[in-house]
Each structure stands twice: as structure tokens, then as C-alpha cells.
């Protein structure tokens, strides 16, 4: 049986895989160690791994259960992916209230990590749109959880990293759209001050995110492209066009990504846009999911995999902290092309362990070059800590237990809601 990898393909290990096809397949029989539900394996580090124990694969729970065409409330099983929801909902005039940078995640995974997206500054996290869900516990109990019913279980399970029990289904509030297309604007910037000025000037726009060059130094330091989008507001055809997917066919050798190749790529990307600013109408797919067009793009990093770093630092003094982090990254020469910067809003996250909070968030990938990458990540983690920020468990493979407990002081309360049979590689790591 093929083993289950997280998206970063690190850490590696073996675990027993048990596929769930029906909610009634749970609880599973005893004797296979601790359990952890896992969906598409798109979290980067080890929150979706349970090495030496068992994973409950939830993709078999992929049924829609109810849809109200007037209110946009969709009930579906937790193994349904956001891609499947979009395929269903967009032609009917509805869209995800919040979406991360890939649509290849399950509803259960989106809840368990309380994911956020380009509209965080106005919409908050995915969990805010989860009206209710069911929670099955390994001891056999079933609970309906919502902001008003079993509210503490609701708060523990959203961003609960799959540790509070199995979510068989959930109800999601979708939002109405009139077009598949996005009114898109992109503006080049040089330096973080320009980035912040653009962010503040565009607070009223629905989606904002920036690509930032983490390799360039000196006069090109912190150059990037600030991207803005709103749903096009004209009623038009929303049927799904034929998709053309490319599969990244092989693992690149470790040497393929280095300062020279990534630097050249970044320069090309930056200069591809000739003017300071462009605006156009584009389909939502390339706007939200540019990388989803290439399946298995993580193979670009080779067999040794990648580490992702994502921090959020408080808005006050945030610029200084991000500046320091970016300099450390640029000096290391380890950064990849894929780096994003965004201002998060102050909409409250519903989960006890939700990651986003008001501030500036930076996310980027690093190819794993053994100790060199680990040392850099540890340094960035310490800088985040000093700045009063925190790291995102869904992206993490390196934060220490001490850091986790400081970043998420509600961990102690959270742990009282954990299912006694559930655990994960991540949880064991940060409880050490």
C-alpha cells in the first residue's frame, strides 16, 4: 500500500492507512495505535501525519447532502474537496466564502486547519462560515456543533487539527456570485512601505495578496507585485470550461533550484508585467489557484521535499519584523519562487487554535538542504517569536513545543477536548 505524504514530503515515515467510505465505518476497531483523520494531504508538515499509528482517510466521504438554492447553505460530507464544491456551486451562482491557495483540500481539512485566503482582511477564516457540523468521538458519542450548540466543541474542533474526533459532515455558508470572472489588478511595488501603502489603500477590495521576491537584494530588495481582485458583478455564463491539467512528471534533482535559477525566474516574473499597473478580467481559477494547474508541483523540490514557513506578526512594528525576516531569507539564498505576503484583518477567528490574527503574514517554501534549511527555519521561527507573532501549524514542521505553547496559549484548554484515541505526529512533536 502506498504511504501517505504531506505536501512538503517531510517528515517521512510509515503509518497504517484506513479508508473511510461511510460515516458508519467509524469508530474503527481497536489495535492500530492512535488515529488521525486525513484528507488530501495538502498541509505541508506533520499535522496530517500520524507516523507509527493510523490515518483515517476521509476522501471516501464525498457526498453532497443538501443544498438550499435560496440561502446558499451547502451540507456535505467532510471528504468533499473545495474543488468539488466549486464545480458544483459556481454554475449555480455560488462561491466559497473563503478559499486557501489550493482547491485540493477537503472540507474537513479546511475546518481542522481553519484555513484563510486572500479575503482574510474582510472575511476572516473558513471556520466563520461553518454553520454546523457533526463530531463523532471514538467512544461512540455524536455531537452536533455550532456557535450556539455545543459551542465549546465547535471552538475546539475548528482549527483543532483533527484531534477532537471525526467530522463526518458539515454545513457551509456559500456566497453568491454573478460571474466566474475576477476583476483583477496588479501593481508592482519596491519595498515594504509601498506594500503597506497599497494594502491600506485597498482595504475595501475583496481579495488582496502579494507575490514577493525573496531572493533579490540591495536595490531590488522586497520588490513584488500587489494583486487585487473582486468578483465581476455582471451576470454571465458560469459553466465550467474544459480543464487542462499538467502533471509535474518527475522529481527534480536537488540542484535544480538555486539562487541563480530562482533569481532568474523571479526577475522574469517581475518584469513580465511591463507597466507599473495592469487591470483585466480573468477566470477565478488562475486568480485563486495558479499552482493547481500543475498537479504534484511539490515534485519540483525533489525527493527530499520542502519546508514551508508561514508567520503572522502583529501589525504594529510588523514591518520591521518582516523586513528582518526577508533580509535573513535573501541572505540565505534558499528561498523559492513561491512567496506571498498579505495583510490579515482583525475579524476574529472562531477556533481555539486558529492561526490568523491582525497583522502581516508571510508564507514561502524552501527546498530542504538538510541542516542549512533547518537552521534558517529555526532562526525565522525565533524572529517571529521575538516580534510577538506566531507560526501556522498547517505549514509547519519545525516549531518547538515551547514556541507552540507560547503562540497558542489556549492549547491547554484545547487539549481537554481532544479525543483520547486521537493523536498526530505534529501533536506529539509540540507536546515534547
Amino acid at each position: 500500500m502506498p504511504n501517505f505524504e504531506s505536501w512538503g514530503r517531510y517528515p517521512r515515515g510509515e503509518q497504517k492507512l484506513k479508508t473511510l467510505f461511510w460515516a458508519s465505518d467509524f469508530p474503527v476497531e481497536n489495535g492500530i495505535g492512535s488515529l488521525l483523520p486525513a484528507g488530501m494531504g495538502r498541509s505541508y508538515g506533520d499535522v496530517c501525519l500520524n507516523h507509527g499509528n493510523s490515518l483515517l482517510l476521509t476522501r471516501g466521504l464525498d457526498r453532497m447532502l443538501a443544498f438550499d438554492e435560496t440561502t446558499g447553505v451547502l451540507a456535505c460530507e467532510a471528504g468533499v474537496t473545495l474543488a468539488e464544491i466549486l464545480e458544483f456551486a459556481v454554475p449555480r451562482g455560488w462561491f466559497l466564502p473563503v478559499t486557501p491557495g489550493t482547491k485540493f483540500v477537503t472540507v474537513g481539512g479546511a475546518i481542522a486547519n481553519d484555513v484563510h485566503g486572500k479575503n482574510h482582511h474582510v472575511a476572516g477564516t473558513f471556520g466563520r462560515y461553518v454553520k454546523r457540523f457533526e463530531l463523532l468521538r471514538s467512544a461512540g458519542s455524536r455531537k452536533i456543533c455550532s456557535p450556539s450548540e455545543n459551542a465549546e466543541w465547535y471552538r475546539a474542533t475548528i482549527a483543532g487539527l483533527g484531534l477532537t474526533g471525526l467530522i463526518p459532515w458539515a454545513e457551509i455558508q456559500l456566497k453568491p456570485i454573478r460571474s466566474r470572472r475576477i476583476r483583477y489588478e496588479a501593481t508592482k511595488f519596491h519595498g515594504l512601505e509601498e506594500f503597506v501603502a497599497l494594502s491600506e489603500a485597498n482595504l475595501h477590495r475583496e481579495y488582496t495578496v502579494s507575490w514577493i521576491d525573496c531572493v533579490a537584494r540591495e536595490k531590488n530588495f522586497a520588490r513584488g507585485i500587489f494583486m487585487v481582485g473582486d468578483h465581476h458583478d455582471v451576470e454571465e455564463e458560469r459553466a465550467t470550461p474544459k480543464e487542462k491539467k499538467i502533471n509535474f512528471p518527475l522529481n527534480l534533482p536537488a540542484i535544480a533550484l538555486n539562487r541563480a535559477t530562482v533569481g532568474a525566474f523571479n526577475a522574469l516574473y517581475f518584469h513580465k508585467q511591463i507597466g507599473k499597473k495592469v487591470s483585466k478580467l480573468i477566470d477565478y481559477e488562475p486568480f485563486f489557484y495558479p499552482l493547481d494547474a500543475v498537479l504534484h508541483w511539490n515534485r519540483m523540490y525533489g525527493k527530499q521535499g520542502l519546508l514551508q514557513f508561514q508567520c503572522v506578526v502583529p501589525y504594529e512594528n510588523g514591518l520591521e519584523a518582516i523586513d528582518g525576516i526577508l533580509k535573513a531569507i535573501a541572505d540565505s539564498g534558499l528561498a523559492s519562487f513561491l512567496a506571498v505576503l498579505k495583510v490579515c484583518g482583525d475579524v476574529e477567528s472562531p477556533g481555539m487554535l486558529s492561526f490568523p490574527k491582525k497583522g502581516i503574514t508571510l508564507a514561502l517554501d524552501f527546498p530542504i538542504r538538510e541542516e542549512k534549511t533547518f537552521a534558517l527555519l529555526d532562526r525565522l521561527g525565533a524572529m517571529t517569536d521575538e516580534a510577538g507573532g506566531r507560526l501556522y501549524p498547517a505549514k509547519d514542521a519545525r516549531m518547538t513545543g515551547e514556541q507552540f505553547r507560547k503562540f497558542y496559549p489556549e492549547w491547554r484548554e484545547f487539549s481537554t477536548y481532544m479525543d483520547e484515541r486521537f493523536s498526530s505526529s505534529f501533536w506529539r512533536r509540540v507536546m515534547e
Partner: protein
Amino acid sequence: MKGRKPVKMLVLGATSAIAMATARIYAQRGSALYLVARNEEKLAVVAADLQVRGASAVHTCVMDLDETEHHAAMLAEAAEKLQGIDIALVAHGVLGDQAAAEAEYGVAEKVLRTNLLGPISLITWLANHFVEQKRGTLAVISSVAGDRGRKLNYVYGTSKAGLSTFLQGVRNRVDRLGIKVITIKPGFVATPMTVHLQGGILFATPETVGRGIAKAIDHRRDVVYVPGYWRLIMGLIKLVPETVFKRLNV
């Protein structure tokens, strides 16, 4: 019935992964469905899914299809509820425990009852019904395992070989009357039935197989292998002389 028009479809064994994947395609076309399965809870979930995805009507019937004495009443009700059946998909079946069946005839008999006798009862009624209404498509899930007996699954293979042969005969009888009989031979499919075997590159998803079945129905084919490369694989396997084959571990 060609193309993407809504149809009236009967699905027997509606909670099987292949049946679900196929039924979704017809639900999305706005078809009316009559679903039959043994487990009430699972059937309700599948019915909800198909309704949400666009089926114009979803009727359900909980029954064990091994009970052939109840087939006629159930099928008559399906025809009445749907006001005529355009397509019937016979999709229920079990893999069975080969080792247990080798040790005990009763186990083998049960596999044959579920995979062969039950379907023969259903197909007999449906073929006659279709002849009477002068139209109809009968799509039946057999298996590549019926193409050649192997030590790993010959009881299952026997049931499917019998089913394929039965369908050949029915086709030979009713095709000239405008009734379509389609034998579907999936290869390895990643489903709950095969969860203990999975892993090879030859495993297809139920979605792939569902699309293959819908295509076979839309294009009015006789015998289809899904995915199509299984026609080649089984063609080669059938060519191996028995004197050699009997020594192989395949």
C-alpha cells in the same frame, strides 16, 4: 437516450462505488433515479447526494437483492414510479473470500447467488419488460475476472464468466428488437470491495469507471472494458495456452 438528455434510470446496488459514480453523471443530467440497496442508512446518503447534484427525482428501495422472490414486485414498482425505465444498471456484487470458498462449498454458493443468480433474475424480468415497451438499455457490471479463471479469485471469476455468457445470450435474443444489452468489464477499481488489495498502477478510480460506463451507454456499445486498456491485457492473457497458464502465479 444519446448525449446528455435526462433519462429514467434504475440502479441496482446503488451504494456500490461504481454505481454511485455512474449515477452522479446521470443525476447531473437531471435524470430521474430509482435506487435499490440493502443498507438503509447508506442508501439515504447516496440518494441525498444524487438529489443535490441535480436528479429530477430520486426514489429508493431498501432490499437484499439475493432475495429473488421479491425482484418482480420491486421492479414493477420501479417501472411505475419512474413511468418507464430507460436504463437499468445492475451493479451489485461481492468479491467473496476465495480461500473460504475453496474450503467450503457454501461460501462459493453464496458468491454465485449474489453475483450470478440474483442478476439473472433481475435481467430476465428487465429484458422482458424492455421487449414489451420496445426500448431500454440494460447495463450490467461483470468483470475482467470472468475472462479467465485464476487461482486467486476463480469463484468470483466464475460468477462473472457466467454473467457475461448469460448477457451474450440475452443480447443475441433482444438486440434485434431494439434493446441494448451492455456488458461492462471493469479491471481493478479502488472501491471498498478491493480496499485490501489496492496499490498497483492498474487500479482505476470509480469516477473513471463511471465515466466509461456512461460513455458505453451513450454510445450503445456491446461489451466494454473499463479502462479500455484491459481489453488488450485480457486479450493477451486469454492467448496464453492452458498448459503454460496453469503453472503461472497470476
